[in-house]
């Protein structure tokens, strides 16, 4: 089989798949990998092809087709948030933005937001009676309560949340597996996971991260474990994870139930 005889792309040049990865990176304002950047700088063919790919402008899509609405209602709240996220990125209906900003009970007004630079993390806590509050810095949580997260970033990036607890255990809360998901910048993004708090008491430090390059859950977990180890297992002494990402922290003060 002489499968390569009809191929037009020089062997050393980047494929459309590789160039599409660059298009995605550029849309997220992420620098390409050094070897690809070097090839692009030296290769007129790849530079021209990349320009062709980036010039393709799809027609406006219906941001929320009826078919998706039906699916979202069946799937429940997670898909509603996902669809709302899509709406926001598509420059959708501004009236719906307030819904995306309020993933839980609006009546709680105290803030638990911690910001650093252009990243903010909000934690919403639901107690065992079903009441929802927005975590404040002095707030106390209890085993059995559940929490959800909302991240806001000034620019798109790969986002996740990891917790370092008082027992010296590192747990990645978002995402549950695989790689960190892309997060649209500029708007608060409710994360999908609902976490039920375990029996470990004391202070747990949550890190929200926003990365310019894709990292796996395993890498995030390892970064938490290494940082915790470096501080003798005390999460309150960990100020930064060893990842080249924007980071923000929120402390959970967990006490026994009343």
């Amino acid at each position, binding site marked *: *089989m002489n*499968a390569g005889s*009809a*191929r*037009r*792309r020089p062997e050393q040049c980047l*494929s*459309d*798949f*590789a160039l*599409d*990865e660059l*298009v*995605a990176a550029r*849309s*997220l304002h992420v620098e390409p990998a050094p070897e690809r950047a070097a090839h692009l700088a030296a290769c007129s063919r790849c530079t021209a092809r990349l320009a062709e*790919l*980036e010039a*393709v*402008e*799809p*027609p406006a*899509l*219906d941001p929320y*087709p009826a*078919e*998706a609405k039906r*699916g*979202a209602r069946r*799937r429940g709240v*997670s*898909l509603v948030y*996902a*669809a709302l*996220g*899509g709406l926001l*990125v*598509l420059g959708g209906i501004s009236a719906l933005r307030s819904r995306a900003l309020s993933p839980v009970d609006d009546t709680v007004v105290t803030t638990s937001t911690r910001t650093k630079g252009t990243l903010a993390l909000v934690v919403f806590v639901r107690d065992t009676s079903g009441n929802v509050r927005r975590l404040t810095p002095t707030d106390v949580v209890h085993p059995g309560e559940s929490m959800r997260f909302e991240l806001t970033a000034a620019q*798109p990036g790969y*986002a996740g949340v990891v*917790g370092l607890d008082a027992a010296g255990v590192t*747990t990645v*809360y*978002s*995402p*549950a*597996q*695989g*790689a960190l*998901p*892309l*997060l*649209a910048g500029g708007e608060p*993004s409710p994360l*999908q*996971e*609902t*976490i*039920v708090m*375990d029996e470990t008491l004391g202070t747990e430090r949550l890190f929200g991260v926003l990365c310019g390059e894709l990292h796996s859950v395993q890498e995030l977990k390892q970064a938490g474990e290494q940082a915790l180890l470096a501080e003798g297992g005390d999460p309150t002494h960990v100020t930064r994870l060893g990842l080249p990402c924007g980071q923000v922290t929120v402390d959970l003060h967990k006490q026994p139930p009343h």
Partner: protein
Amino acid sequence: MARKQARPEVAGLFVAHHRSVYRRALNLLGDQDAAKDVCQEIFVRVMRLEDPAPLAANPLAWLYRATTNLCLNQLRDSKRRQELLSSWPSEEQHTGSADARVIVYRILRDVPEDLQEAAVYYYVDELSHEEIAQIIGTSRRTVGNRLLSFHARVGELLQEKVLS
């Protein structure tokens, strides 16, 4: 701590990849409206995914594969196939185009779908075996075997055409 399923952020995926999905569909189908429909359908599927793990692991690879398979399914659809074949140059304009039409028709009809998929990545997209393996989620050896099988099957079809 217990947790529920994670799902890739649709908004972020759309920002990063909708252009690639649309262009890919346009390349394979050659029709803007059809490409737009495919792009729409792909992101609806993202929202409905039961198991988001493969998508989260490599979003672009997942979207490439989903788009390719959706487009190939449309091309296999008899109505779309007729449109495709009828749009080819007439016999007066291009000697041998009738034979080519028959061959394309029979490839779409007779070659197994997994072989068609690998062939599209290799011959149409000119991806490397490694990239194809990444998209399909298999080994490079399997990719090579599928391409060999595709080549052999197309050879058989051509042989049948010559003999008929």
